[in-house]
């Protein structure tokens, strides 16, 4: 009889643990950026005047970088930094001899592996999850 109770408790615990969340979160603050970066098509000059794309700013290249952020414990704990993004932006702007990056856009989508990981391994309390991020923008120079 004890065995039946024990089995019942074990199955209940396993089913409870299998209801879990898999995913990841990422933070970007561009702390190591050496050039001005804007989410809009505008930047400031030295005197705080607004420079606009097509007027004072000329697009000299496109920037695109794909980054995968990893996380564990229901996406609470972040496992990936973003220093590589800053370095990629600095390198791309320097290569094109630009003065900054405008129209920055971040597109994020959960990895398919989140669902694959969820099904067979959801019994484990710590499952790595991820989010795929595409960082895009226009490299500009002064007209």
């Amino acid at each position, binding site marked *: 009889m004890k065995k039946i109770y024990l089995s019942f408790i074990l199955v209940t615990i396993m089913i409870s643990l299998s209801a879990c969340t898999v995913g990841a979160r990422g933070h970007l603050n561009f702390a190591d950026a050496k050039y001005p970066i804007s*989410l809009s098509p505008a930047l400031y*000059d030295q005197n705080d005047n607004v420079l606009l794309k097509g007027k004072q700013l000329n697009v000299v290249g496109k920037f695109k970088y794909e980054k995968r952020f990893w996380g564990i414990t229901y996406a609470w704990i972040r496992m990936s930094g973003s220093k590589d993004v800053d370095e990629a932006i600095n390198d791309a702007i320097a290569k094109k001899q630009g003065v900054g990056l405008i129209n920055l856009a*971040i597109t994020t*989508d959960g990895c398919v592996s989140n669902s694959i990981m*969820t099904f067979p391994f959801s019994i484990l309390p710590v499952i790595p999850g991820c989010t795929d991020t595409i960082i895009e923008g226009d490299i500009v120079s002064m007209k």
Partner: protein
Amino acid sequence: MSNTISLNEIKKMPMMGPLLLFIVALLSGCSSLSTTTTAKNMTRPVMLGPIQHVKSNKKTPLYKKMDFDITVENSIVTSGGQYQQTTYVTEESAEKIDAELMRKLDSPKDKIVVETLFVKSARACFLVFCNSRVDYSGIEGGIYSTTPVSTGSSK
């Protein structure tokens, strides 16, 4: 001879049950819910990072007027019991960022500074059934004035 396969015949195939469950689990995560964060419709700079000016490391003293935390979310959450199920779908576009920032700007001289850009994706599942998918991205930062404000704090 019939070309159709009956359910009983499928059931007799070895490993068909686990395989079907695996396919269901895979398909449940294949639909895309991507979100985009940008401010392409703004005519004012929405600055990120430590460099605020073209060709200059000059730091202008800024005074915070207000904080903002704007999230663009795409999610599908299903809840319910034995007789009824409810599905909540949230679909937001990147224009939400522009609209929220425009609403918060009350002076043409105010500056928008984004301190953190965040992204998150999560799937909540129970055994093989994923009943919740959330993808979101967004920005945290502040609206700053170049002249001291009575209630703000200096950056």
